[in-house]
Every structure is written in structure tokens, then in C-alpha cells.
């Protein structure tokens, strides 16, 4: 958040161009760190190899170059908010470099307590930055232990120390043991968190075994026709054999780990690279109830794969005694640059991006939703700029409606699709209103749908539509739908706020309006998002005392003072 603030201070706003330039700078810096990290890892693990300098240099250049030019990371670098993942990776890499620098020296000459403390202080500082960038910065600790287990194996002061090797393995295993213990003694701790998801813990873990292979395949063979912003079309693994690739994936991981373990002394980098990838994914691609697939999750773990690719490439160059490795390296980079350029071009335009996402993932609800929305937005922008005597073709809107229809067919209860179809028919295709009563469809979907983030986006859009005056019929039925959803989700304050907005449109003098907002506060007393509505409401009815009281309550529930500038503006701007 600090870097976004810096962006704001330097450019006077949140211009997406400058935000992305900021991300690009972080990506380049991270690329440099990948080089330094790879070099340190390779130099140590190849210390008994005669031509380690040349192999190391080639491998590190390839590893960092491939990582920097990889098209998979376009969706991280050019997606402003993923700066969090970027900074976390940057800090983790820096932490690993600092650790390796010290640890290599300790392996040869040992260290005094003050030296160990110095390194620990630096690591703690960098780790803090990593965690405050994004929580998965915590992985730094585990990756440090991975380095200890795979690269140093108890080496200290020029000798092997079995106790240190055992301690390293024990600490490295600790997270597994902790998670396993929680799972055995308090399984609800994990399982209970899946109530808001359309899949279970079991299904997620099984699916992730396939997803991880998918990630590996994208990293090794950057097929940009498979990549995209949304991957909600992934087939969920319902069992070990459904689909069959689940079993194959599990076996594949078991085999990979076994081979890496068997060759851990001959090729320590293999085990290191594989475990780096898996440890890097351990937070976001295992037991936590997150969405199934995101490309940015590979930003850090991808370093492990790139390192192995670089190493493999360097060994080949060495084995086949290629005299001009620079040409081969340039060739690799050139091959990567082409898909990278294509993907960057795709990301340069909203409409193009949505269209390509949809082409790559035609069954993805979100891809349908966002492309259709982009079409509407593009249409409405052009409509505003249109001279009075010209007429705009409605084809894009028809196309948009088609994609929402398709989304609806794929996922009939998806409220976002239904909301958008209602909006389109209300505003642009009134002749179609007689064919499908979208509010009725929505009413029946609302009885059973496990609400997802997109559903809320759709509902908010629906309310915006009514507030703008673009949707004009069925307000009372929308109120009923929202009331029904509030019954099913009594702890969601936003349900009451949506009801309030609708009721206010129906009758601004309704005495029960206040009750709805008070119910929203009661639904989740810690939620601070209802107060702006309460303040607006009391301001509308001229109850200054309650405006002040709710401002005060809002401050009370905002200990980090994030809303302070906004509150101050209320007083200074009147």
C-alpha cells in the first residue's frame, strides 16, 4: 500500500499507466534478484564441479531471463493490485540471497553468535516487509529451511554436523506436522472455512494436484492460448478418479518427489527446484479455501522451475560443448519474447483482453461476464460521444446479451448473469422482456444459490441500474429477493444495505429504512462499511446528532484510521 501511495504522490493520482510502470520496475528488480539467487544456489551446489563458473553463469542468466520474459507473469505485472504478490516475491528473494550469502560463508568458516544474530536481524527485517506486502511472504522462513535441508545439509565450519542437518529437516517438516495435527484434532478448523465455497476441502486438495501440473506445463511450455485472467472453468476433481487425471497427477507428484529424493545427492538442484515450486505454492494451492487457479500464484514458485530449466540448459550447453552459448541463450529469449509481446499487446486494451480471455476460456462464467460487460461499457461510451444525428449499431449489445445468455446456461443460478440480462432487456431490448421474466429466474435462484463474489457484483449492478433510472420495473420483487437472501445470509451486512437502497428508491420516507441499516450493523458489528450509509441516511433526514454518533462509531471501528482522510474531508468540505 505504501508503494501505491508513492505512486500517488509522484504522479498525482492512480493512472494505470504509471501503476503498471511501477510494477514493471519491481519485476525487473525481481529478475535481477532471481539471477543473484540462482547464482548463489548454483555456485554452492556445484562447488565440487570443475567448470561450475560457466555452468552457473549460463544457468543463472537463463533462469532469470526466462523468469523475466515469461508470458505467464503478464497477468501479474500488468494487473496493478498484484504488486502485492510482486513485492512479496521481491522481498522473499532478497531474504534468500542474504541468507545464502551468510550461510555459504558459515558452511566454510563457521560463525560467531553476533554474525548469526546480524543475519537473523536482516532476515527478520526483510521477512517483515515480505509479510506486510502479502501474507505469503511468510514462506521466506520455509524456503530458508529448504535451502538448509537441500543445499547445506548440516555443513558448518568445513564439516558436516549431523545435529544441524537433523534440526534443519525437523524444522522444515514442522509446518506439515502442525497442519496434520490440526487436521486430526480439529478438522473443522479447515473444513468449516469452506462454507462459502461451492467445493469442499477434499475437492480443492485433489484439484490442486492437477492445477500444479497445469502450472508446470505453462511454465515449461508457455501456451498463451491457455492462459487468461479467469480460470473459473477448471473442472473440479470430485474424487481420485474423477477426472482420471487427478490420479495421474497424484502419481506424477509422488514419482517426481521420489526421483528427486533418490537423486538428492547427485543432483541436489532437482530436489531443491521441485520443493521450491511446491513450498512456494503451499499457501495458496493447498488447503486454504481460495479460488482454484490464478496465474500470479506462480510468481515466486516459478523461480524453482526456471532455475531447473536454466540448470538443464547450462548442462546441455556444457555437455555438447556449444562454443557460442550466447546465441543459444538469445534464441531462448527470442522464442519467449514472441508470446510475451502478443500477450502484452492483448493486455493493452480492456476489450481485447476480455475477448481473448473468453476465447481461451469459453466456458468460464467470469470471462463471459467481463467480456459482455466490456462490450456494454464500450457501447455506452461511444453512445455518449455520438453526435445527435447518428445512430449506433446495437450489435455489440446483442453480442453481450449472447454471452450473458451463455453464462446463464453454463451456470443457471449465477445472479450476475441474471442481473445483467435483466438490465439489458430493461434498457435496450424491451421487446424481449415478455420471453423471460428474469426477476422470477433470480427469485428462484436466490433460494438455493451459494453466493459468490460475482453474484454480489451483479446485485450491486442491479441496484445501480435502478438508481440510475435505467431499470424501472419490478422494484418490489427485487426487495423480496433481497429479503430472501438476507434470511439465508443473516450475517452479511451488504444484503441489508442493498435492501435499504431499493427501499429508499421505492419510498424515501419509509420509517423502516433506518431499521434496515441498523440490522446491517447488527449483522456484523465489526464491519465498518455500513456507517457511510447510516451517515448518509441521517444526513438525508436531518438528524445531525446521529450523523455525529455514527461518525464516532465509524472511527471507533477503524483503529487503523484508514477512513480518517475521508472523515476529515466531511468537516473541511462541509
Amino acid at each position, binding site marked *: 500500500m505504501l508503494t501505491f501511495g508513492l505512486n500517488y504522490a509522484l504522479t498525482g493520482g492512480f493512472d494505470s499507466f504509471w501503476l503498471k510502470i511501477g510494477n514493471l520496475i519491481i519485476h525487473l528488480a525481481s529478475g535481477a534478484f532471481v539471477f543473484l539467487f540462482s547464482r548463489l544456489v548454483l555456485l554452492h551446489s556445484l562447488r565440487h564441479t570443475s567448470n561450475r563458473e560457466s555452468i552457473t553463469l549460463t544457468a543463472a542468466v537463463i533462469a532469470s531471463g526466462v523468469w523475466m520474459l515469461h508470458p505467464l507473469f503478464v497477468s501479474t505485472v500488468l494487473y496493478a493490485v498484484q504488486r502485492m504478490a510482486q513485492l512479496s516475491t521481491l522481498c522473499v528473494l532478497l531474504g534468500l540471497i542474504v541468507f545464502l550469502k551468510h550461510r555459504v560463508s558459515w558452511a566454510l568458516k563457521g560463525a560467531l553468535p*553476533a*554474525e548469526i*544474530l*546480524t543475519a537473523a*536481524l*536482516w532476515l527478520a*527485517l526483510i521477512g*517483515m516487509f515480505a509479510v506486510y506486502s502479502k501474507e505469503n511472504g511468510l514462506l521466506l522462513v520455509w524456503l530458508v529451511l529448504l535451502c538448509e535441508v537441500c543445499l547445506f545439509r548440516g555443513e558448518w565450519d568445513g564439516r558436516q554436523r549431523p545435529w544441524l542437518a537433523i534440526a534443519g529437516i525437523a524444522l522444515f517438516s514442522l509446518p506439515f506436522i502442525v497442519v496434520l495435527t490440526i487436521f486430526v484434532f480439529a478438522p473443522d478448523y479447515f473444513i468449516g472455512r469452506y462454507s462459502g465455497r461451492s467445493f469442499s476441502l477434499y475437492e480443492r486438495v485433489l484439484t490442486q494436484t492437477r492445477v500444479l501440473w497445469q502450472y508446470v506445463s505453462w511454465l515449461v511450455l508457455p501456451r498463451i492460448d491457455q492462459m487468461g485472467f479467469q480460470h473459473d472453468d477448471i473442472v473440479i476433481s470430485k474424487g481420485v478418479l474423477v477426472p482420471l487425471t487427478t490420479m495421474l497427477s497424484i502419481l506424477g507428484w509422488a514419482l517426481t518427489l521420489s526421483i528427486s529424493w533418490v537423486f538428492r545427492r547427485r543432483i541436489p538442484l532437482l530436489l531443491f527446484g521441485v520443493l521450491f515450486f511446491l513450498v512456494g505454492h503451499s499457501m495458496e494451492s493447498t488447503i486454504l479455501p481460495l479460488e482454484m487457479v490464478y496465474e500470479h500464484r506462480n510468481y515466486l514458485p516459478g523461480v524453482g522451475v526456471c532455475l531447473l530449466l536454466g540448470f538443464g540448459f547450462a548442462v546441455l550447453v556444457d555437455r555438447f560443448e556449444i562454443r557460442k552459448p550466447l546465441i543459444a541463450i538469445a534464441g531462448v529469449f527470442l522464442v519467449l519474447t514472441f508470446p510475451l509481446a502478443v500477450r502484452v499487446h492483448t493486455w493493452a486494451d480492456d476489450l481485447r483482453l476480455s475477448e481473448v480471455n473468453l476465447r481461451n476460456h469459453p466456458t468460464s462464467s467470469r470471462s463471459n461476464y467481463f467480456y459482455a460487460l466490456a462490450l456494454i461499457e464500450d457501447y455506452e461510451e461511444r453512445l455518449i460521444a455520438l453526435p445527435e444525428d447518428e445512430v449506433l449499431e446495437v450489435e455489440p449489445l446483442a453480442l453481450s446479451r449472447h454471452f450473458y445468455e451463455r453464462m446463464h446456461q453454463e451456470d443457471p443460478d449465477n445472479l450476475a448473469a441474471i442481473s445483467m440480462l435483466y438490465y439489458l432487456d430493461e434498457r435496450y431490448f424491451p421487446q424481449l422482456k415478455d420471453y423471460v421474466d428474469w426477476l422470477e429466474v433470480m427469485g428462484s435462484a436466490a433460494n438455493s444459490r451459494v453466493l459468490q463474489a460475482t453474484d454480489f457484483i451483479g446485485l450491486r449492478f442491479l441496484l445501480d441500474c435502478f438508481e440510475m433510472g435505467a431499470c424501472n420495473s419490478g422494484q418490489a420483487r427485487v426487495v423480496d429477493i433481497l429479503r430472501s437472501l438476507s434470511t439465508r445470509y443473516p450475517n452479511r451486512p451488504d444484503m441489508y444495505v442493498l435492501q435499504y437502497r431499493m427501499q429508499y428508491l421505492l419510498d424515501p420516507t419509509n420509517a423502516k429504512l433506518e431499521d434496515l441499516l441498523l440490522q446491517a450493523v447488527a449483522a456484523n458489528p465489526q464491519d465498518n462499511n455500513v456507517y457511510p450509509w447510516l451517515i448518509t441516511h441521517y444526513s438525508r433526514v436531518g438528524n*445531525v*446528532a446521529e450523523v*455525529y*454518533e455514527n*461518525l*464516532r462509531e465509524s*472511527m*471507533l471501528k477503524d*483503529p487503523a*484510521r484508514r477512513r*480518517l*482522510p475521508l*472523515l*476529515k474531508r466531511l*468537516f*473541511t468540505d462541509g
Partner: protein
Amino acid sequence: MRSAGEAMNRSGPFLLLTLVAGLLIWAYWPGAAGPSLLDDKSSVSVLEVLEDTSRARDFVLGDTSGPLGRPVSMATFVLERLLLDNGTVTSKKVNIILHALIGVFIAWLLLLLFQWAKFPYAAWMSVALAAVWLFLPLHVSTVLYVVQRMAMLACLFVVLSCISYLQFRRAQCERRTSIFWLLLVPVFASMAVFSKENALVVIPILLLMEVFWLQFIGADGRKQIWLAQLTLGLIAIGALSVVLLLSLKFEWLANRYGSRDFTLEERLLTQLRVVWDYMRQSIWPDMARLGLYHDDYPVSSSLSDPKATLYAALGWIALVLALLAGSFWREGRILAFGLFLFLAAHSLESTVWPLEIYFEHRNYLPSVGLIIFFGALLGTIGRNWPNLMPPLLAWTTIFLIVTAAKTGSQVQMWSNGPLLAMNHVNGHPESPRANIDMASHMASVGELGSALDYSERAYRFSQIHKSSASEREGDRFVRDIALSCIARKPLPLPHLQKIGSVNPERPLGSVNTFHVLVQMLQDDVCPEFDWIALADHLAGIYLIDNRTHRASANMYSVLAGLENALQRFDRAYAYTELFLALSPTNTRGQLMKLHFATALGKVEVAEQMIAALQGKQAAGELNVGEQQTLALYTEQP
């Protein structure tokens, strides 16, 4: 390259300090827009009547908030009034710049201390730690509370006194003439004390600095026996005097707690916890609790009530024993100095004197001790394990950034009256003052019902918390009337008649509250209010006989002001008589009596007063303003 590095090491810290001071001013500047508070009105706002230099002396020497009159501090307010505009915004801006300046001097003090102790990175460390001190969020309530310039100036001159002593000692070690610096020590010390009396702690601070930091080292690195004997002798005399004073004057001290709801013993027990809390709030504050009002702080009635009192006591014993034990070693003494400075600087305001329980501004000087302690810790580590210094300085920088961010947010809170009032009530929901402040804001937006609710809460909590003065119900009713006037919804007659219904023998206690109400009458803020009914009701309480026990002298003075504003001079005269009965030689009372006697045509009484006042004038007991007032009655038309 080498010379570039040297230049960086030489000028880098100075440039950094300039940058820090600039950033500090930038961060604090929005706070200048904040409101005036509590004592600002009695000590600073009174200067509004000062038009030219003729009465400047009256104000410089006429402050009554401390026994020595705080002329140095008052001089700055007077100069500000004469040269600038005396607005609250200007006063706060001056405070902000002064704060930055004090930070620069603290950096200098730290540099001298660290160089003496031969710490590595002395210059960088002193700048970094001075920056930490400058940005402590705890100081926001000192810097942006205009009247606390007194505490700031006291701190400034104590720091300058310490710098002068260190310069003197350094020159002495280098066998240079050092009388100039030695003479500056008492000069700055005096200015500190005349800024605010608590700067008397400069004496123990200088002695502790010699014992624990300088350690009597002389020119050839040897211990100066005479200096050790002198310093330790002075400490022994000081300690003995304190012990004697406490044993002989304990009763006298205890009796001075008459105006408080807590006893001397309770204050001492409570301060055991309070000073730990000050330490915590200085280093890693609970932002919600920071603020001006702490009159809800729970008072300790015994070591076990609350239990934290015992833990606090044990903590202090353990800490002091640890510091004394560590003092057998040179480095231990260096480490101990900062914490002893912290305690010494708190020795006046946080011990036996019957002051209020808790104020953040009391840490303005003591927090320098905490910074010195951290400097000593860093320096000692750096001297023994140089590798640890870079990461520790990096951590210090991070701490500084986090601290500065907190301060920035606290300044924003202080930059707006309503926000500050809400913040205070949120952090201290049971503070009577915070609730009164909130009541005023609610009244100012016309919400009388809410204002009266807060007023009632203030009254109720004042009965519960010993750390605040237990409010009389009559004072609450007076406040409610004032709130109703602010809200432009004057309360009806039956409400006025509640005054005196409880505790009729002494219905009102707060002169300030009543004075605010009378000020409203004088400023014609509340023309709809039935002032005559109020004055009649009060006369029915206070003027039924000539007994003086129903109010203090000052209360009678304000009651006279009420009747004077209503031009009912006979009653104003009667109140003045009661005032003078309690305080017969009070010049203000005599001038009032002269005024009312003249208005009522009591020539003889007026002549008596003129004679008495002229006697005082001849004895030089009247200030310029009083002389000018007297002249109105003695000069021929």
C-alpha cells in the same frame, strides 16, 4: 572516492537532520488548524486584550499557572501577540517550529554523549534517534496544545543546559578554557525553570549525567576525585533534603490534596502504574488512548487494588535494582543513565505534588531519557559487535517510519475540532472532560438533546473516577444552560431552579463553567435566555445573608460579573463585598468595589478604595493594567 565517503560521513548526518526537521514540520503543519484547548483559554487567549507594549510587562510577569510565573514562556506569547497575530493557528505553528528546533538540539546532545562514549556511527545514530524522538506520537498533544509551549521551552533550556555542561567537560578534558560553557549552564537552567517550574529537574539530571555517563573522567582519562566528591556530595545532600522534606512536611503535603478526590498515598500508588504507562505510550503507543483527557485513569487505592499496582511497584524495584547492579560496570552505568534521566525528569510531576493524575505532556523531557537509553544500547552493541550496527540502524529506521506514520495520523486527528472530540470520547468514553468537549460540539451543531446526554455522562463519570474532580450537580446545571445557549435552544425556567436544589450550602464549585456562562451574557450570545431569572435565583441562594461559606472568592467575583453585565450594581456590590470578605487585599476585588461604589454613588466607599489602591500603587504592587483602571477613577475629567 575516499574523500567523497568522508564528506558524506561529515555532512550526511547534518543533511539528514535538516531533512528530518523539514519532514517533521510538513507532517505537523496540518495540526495548526486544530482547536484551542483547556488552559489555552486562561493562559494564552487572555492576551487578546494586549494592544501595544504598554501592558506587555503585566502579561510577561502576571501568569499565575505556576509559582514562578513562567515569564520566559509568557514572553514568547506576548512577543507573538505583538509581532504576529496571536491566533491559535499562529501559536501552533510556532510550537511546531519550536519542536523541530528542540529536536535539532537533542541531536546535538546525543552526538556529544555518543562521542564521549566513543560509540560507532555516533553522528548517524544521534540524528536517527533525535528523529525518533521528534516523531513520537505522544508529543502531538504537547506540540499542538498551545499552552504546552511552557513544557517545550523548559525542555529546550534543560537540553541546552546539558549541552553546555557537556561542552564544558569536553573542553576541560582537552585542557581548553571552558568558562563560557560553564557559565551557560546556570543561565539555561534558570531560563528553563522560568519557562516552567518542573525544569528544576535539570539539577538531578546534570548530576546523574556526571555520575553515570561522564563518570568524572578528566584530561588524562583519570577520574577527577574532587568532581566525584562534589557530585556525589550534592546528590547526597539532595537526597537527604528530599527525605527530610517528605518526613517533616508529609502532613503539609497531604493537606494540599484537599481540592483533589484522591489522597497523597493514592497518587503515589497510581503513579507507579502511570509512569510505566508513560513508558509504553512513548515507545509503542496504543493510539486510541492517546490524547489530552486522561481524567478517567483508575486510581490505585492500595497495592492490591488494582493488582497492577503491585506488579508496577515490583517492576520498578526490579528495574532500579538491575540498573544499580549494572552500575558496577562502566557500560552498565552508560546504559542506566537514560532510564534514570527518565525517572528524574518525572520526579516532580509524577510523585508527591497534588497535580492531576495523568498528562502526556509530562513526558516531553523524560522521553529524551528513553531515547538516550536506546542510543546507549545501540552504541554498546555497536562497539562490541560492529556487524550488528547496520541491521540495527535499519530496524531503527523502520521504527522511525512507523512512528512517523502514526504521528501523521494523530496530527490529522488534532487538525479538526469535531474529529478530535470524537477521538477523545472513543479513546476515553468515561472521561468527564472528553464528554464535556463532545457535549459542546453537539450543542454547536444545534443538537441540544445529545449535548445534554454527554453532559450527563460527564457528570456521572466525574462521580465515579477519582482522577477527575467530582463535579457538583449545580455546575452540571450551569453547563447545561451554557450548552442550551450554544445550541440556541435556551432551557426553561424550571431547569434554572435546579441550581441549589442539591447541596444548597455550596451549590457551585467550578468557577470556569460559570465564567463561561457569564461570558455568554457579556457577548450577548444568548439573548433569548432569561438571565434576570437566573440572576434572581442565584441571589436567592447567595445573598440571603452575609455568610461567605457558599462559594469561593473567585465565584463571588464571577457572580458580581453576572450582575454587572445586567447592570444591577447593588447586587454586584453585594457579591464584591463577599469576595473581599474572603480575600480582603485582592486588587481586582478592590477595583470592582470601586467601580460598583462609584456607580451606586457611594462616594465615601469609593474614596476609601481609591486610597487603598493608591497605597498599593505607591508600593509598586499594581501592574500597568490595574494602574490604568485606577486612573479612570482618579484623573480629572
